[in-house]
């Protein structure tokens, strides 16, 4: 086997040192009853060429993505990834390294983690961020649990227009912790109805831009919550232009970080962003890198506040997290470094303007109108004149990919489609799609 360095001679020598007669004797401690029950996989070994061929078979059963124009969204977007990102993340010193428990030989990972944490705080206008979580949905769920530890009430209010995958994960984690989830419905304007805040909450969860693409009004919301924490779910690209949740007094800000330099990759690996206030540091889950000095006074980085974590606190840890999403966080760090503040603003602007252009063009077709008048960023919901499933299928035949309308339907918006537009979409593609939409209409 290619990945094993030992030769038969090596093994013979080692067996002799250990005083065993055969390699089988290394496994005499496994009960015979267990060994007898073993069944192999009936899987032949394959050479590298054969493995490559086998995996290419799978690719052939997937869509040819180069031939498609994507308007898919829902938290995962088709953004442009600068070439630098993959060159850095494929450096083996980064990707074959372990968690930086020995900081003196992990300054690469730790410095990048520190940069990442700083960048997340800058984007969200928050005070402290961890070094990443598995994805936006688990980051949100952990935020809800953290709020319950701090405030003590076993109830969370959740805005209805949340992406369903966020909601599903929150529901599961809350069920396990005995936390009641109360839903705040969307108004006819497509925003969360925050007029009546339930009492005895630990937190209120609101997403902006939300599942309709609508930007929520966060001003004054924190003041209306009393003791409860304000948890905002956001989109990192939007923060190149939009006022950050920290400005509105958010206590916790979470997001899916995929738009920052990760491909969609069929939904994983992803990147959970988590930021909060300094006063909640001791309750914050996840790894954190901190700055310090070495014995000669040189600045270096190390894992900080480890006493919150499982390897020390065990059942009293703030969470059970061990591995997070470090390499994805590195990709996001390099992505943001490649853009700079100017570039991030530029890409956010392109998203905003192209989405608004598309919205304008679609609504010029007869029977199409925006479902909501409220402001949006790069995703918007359109009321359509015929069966949205049919429209989606028709568009797909022409190579235009649009989200399944079932999620909108489950949020109470029937006969609608949602479109996400990123900087990758050219005017030509947008015009072409609108033309196709118009033609399907006529059929």
């Amino acid at each position, binding site marked *: *086997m290619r*990945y094993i360095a*030992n030769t038969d001679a090596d093994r013979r020598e080692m067996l002799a040192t250990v005083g065993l007669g055969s390699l089988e004797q290394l496994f005499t401690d496994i009960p015979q009853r*267990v060994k007898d029950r*073993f*069944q*192999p*996989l009936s899987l032949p*070994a*394959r050479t590298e060429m054969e493995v490559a061929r086998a*995996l290419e078979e*799978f*690719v052939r059963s*997937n869509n040819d993505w180069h031939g498609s124009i*994507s308007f*898919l969204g829902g938290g*995962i977007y088709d953004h442009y990834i600068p070439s630098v990102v993959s060159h850095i993340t494929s450096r*083996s010193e*980064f*990707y074959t390294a372990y*968690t930086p428990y020995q900081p*003196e*030989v992990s300054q690469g990972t730790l410095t990048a983690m*520190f940069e990442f944490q*700083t*960048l997340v705080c*800058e984007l969200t206008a928050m005070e402290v961020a961890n070094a990443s979580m*598995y*994805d936006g*949905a688990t980051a949100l769920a952990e935020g809800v649990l953290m709020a319950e530890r701090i405030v003590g009430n076993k109830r969370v209010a959740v805005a209805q227009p949340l992406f369903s*995958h966020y909601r599903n994960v929150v529901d*599961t984690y809350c069920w396990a*912790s*005995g936390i009641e989830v109360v839903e705040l419905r969307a108004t006819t304007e497509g925003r969360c109805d925050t007029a009546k805040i339930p009492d005895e909450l630990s937190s209120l969860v609101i997403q902006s831009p939300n599942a309709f693409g609508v*930007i929520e009004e966060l001003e004054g919301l924190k003041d209306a919550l009393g003791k409860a924490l304000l948890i905002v779910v956001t989109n990192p690209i939007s923060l*190149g232009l939009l006022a950050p949740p920290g400005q509105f007094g958010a206590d916790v800000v979470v997001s899916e970080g995929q738009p920052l330099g990760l491909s*969609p990759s069929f939904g*994983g*690996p*992803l990147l959970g962003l988590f930021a909060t206030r300094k006063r909640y*540091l001791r309750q914050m889950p996840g790894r954190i890198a*901190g700055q310090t000095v070495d*014995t000669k006074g*040189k600045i*270096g980085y190390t894992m900080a506040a*480890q006493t919150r974590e*499982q390897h020390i606190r*065990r*059942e009293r*840890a703030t969470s*059970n997290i061990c*591995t997070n999403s470090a390499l994805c966080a590195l990709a996001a760090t390099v992505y943001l470094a*490649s853009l*700079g*503040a100017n*570039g991030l603003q530029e890409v956010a602007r392109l998203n*905003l303007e192209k989405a608004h*252009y598309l919205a304008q063009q679609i609504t010029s077709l007869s029977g199409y109108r925006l479902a909501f008048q409220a402001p949006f960023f790069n995703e918007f919901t359109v009321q359509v004149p015929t069966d949205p499933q049919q429209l989606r299928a028709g568009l*797909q035949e022409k190579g235009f990919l649009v989200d399944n309308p079932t999620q909108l339907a489950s949020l109470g918006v029937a006969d609608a489609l949602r479109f996400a537009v990123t900087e990758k979409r050219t*005017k030509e593609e947008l015009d072409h799609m609108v033309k196709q939409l118009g033609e399907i209409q006529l059929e």
Partner: protein
Amino acid sequence: MSSIFDRKCPQRAGGLFPTPDVPTDGAQKLLPASLLRRKAPRIPCLSEPEIVRHYTHLSKLNYGVDDGFYPLGSCTMKYNPKINEDLARLPGFTQAHPLADGKLVQGSLRLLFEMSTLLSRIAGLADVTLQPAAGAHGELTGMFLVKRYFADRGEDKRCRILLPDSAHGTNPASAALAGFSVTEIPSREDGTVNLGALEEALDETVAAIMLTVPNTLGIFEEQILEITEKVHAVGGLCYFDGANLNAFLGRARPGDMGADIFHFNLHKTLSTPHGGGGPGAGPVAVAEQLVEFLPVPRVVQDDAGYRLDWNCPHSIGSIHSFYGNFGVILKAYSYLLHLGDTGLREVSENAVMNANYVQERLKKTYCLPCDRLCKHEFVLSAKGVAEGISALDIAKRLIDYGFHPPTIYFPLIVPEALMIEPTECEGKKTLDRFIEAMEQIAAEAKENPQLLHDAPQRAPVFRLDQTRAARQPVLTHPFDDSSG
């Protein structure tokens, strides 16, 4: 170490995106002013060469498996095959959006389905969820499954999880997160479960036992069948932490040992890269009676092909945004295809051979609390090497010899623990060099202990002040106020 924030760079970098081809009204016209950012985030604008130099320099401050021996016990730092990296980058896989129509992603769905099948069979259990994004996430999922199983049966007294005192910290943390209380069972001196203590702790308030097999001292639990039988006898479930699966790949299956739930660490046993702390993947296999509770959606096969099934009324719900870390799962799948049955056996054979060889040689110089056949890893104690020398000192001095240190201070039941796991990938020459280094360090400890206390001397930084990092936390770049 300078970070990107240490550079002053007022220029725009630009050059990534073409100028807008749609009419540009500008954000001010499209959105009310109250929704717009007033201050730009303080992200430096660097030129591309500066960015590449900075991160290339940072990478050289790291030590990865590709650099050298990495005997971190319980982490299985095996070689990360490059073919897996190449295949995971194929655009046919990376460009697949999780919400794309099923017809467009049949290849990805089929890969997930086949991986689930393979993992179920490796575990000797009925079915698998690929959703958990890490081992600890798999443990949490397992605890949720246990909770739901008993809730469905109306057995609401089942509130306790048993685990040995040698357990990895994620075990009790996961149990607690799921709302269980934790009872620690004292181990025998070799870290194996004390059957008497287990019997005393067992009653009908026990929901499950969490075991690592082999245990965290690298010793195989020879009474594993008795243990699982006893737990089943009181109606409890058996959860096995699969971190140490490398020890018996291709030879034994957790399901055959009495496990009802088993999690894999793809980034350990199945060769996917650790990435400096993720992303990993922690699929969970379950016995038949738990299948209905598995997270949704599940990947199923029917006449039309593969699809996502949400119709699972007894499911615990979702524990991940989508279907799991596809990009990681793909690498592990590719690894399994390469290995086949014969390769799996070679892995465990060489992993266990290497560990026993290093243990046999090092026990002459170091205290070996448990002197018997080990599996893929073993634990030494630094106690008795020399006065005032700790496991930390030895670990730091190993860095000067060009090795990544082993795991230290775990498991907690061995004082000054050094947990060594060579993995199957290392050759005898490397092992001999490591053994020599360890022997020399033990000699230095007696003759010139200051060398250990001052170590590392040959790393990019000297020993870092952990106390200062904890007492005066600086967790984001300290911008001076003038730039804010």
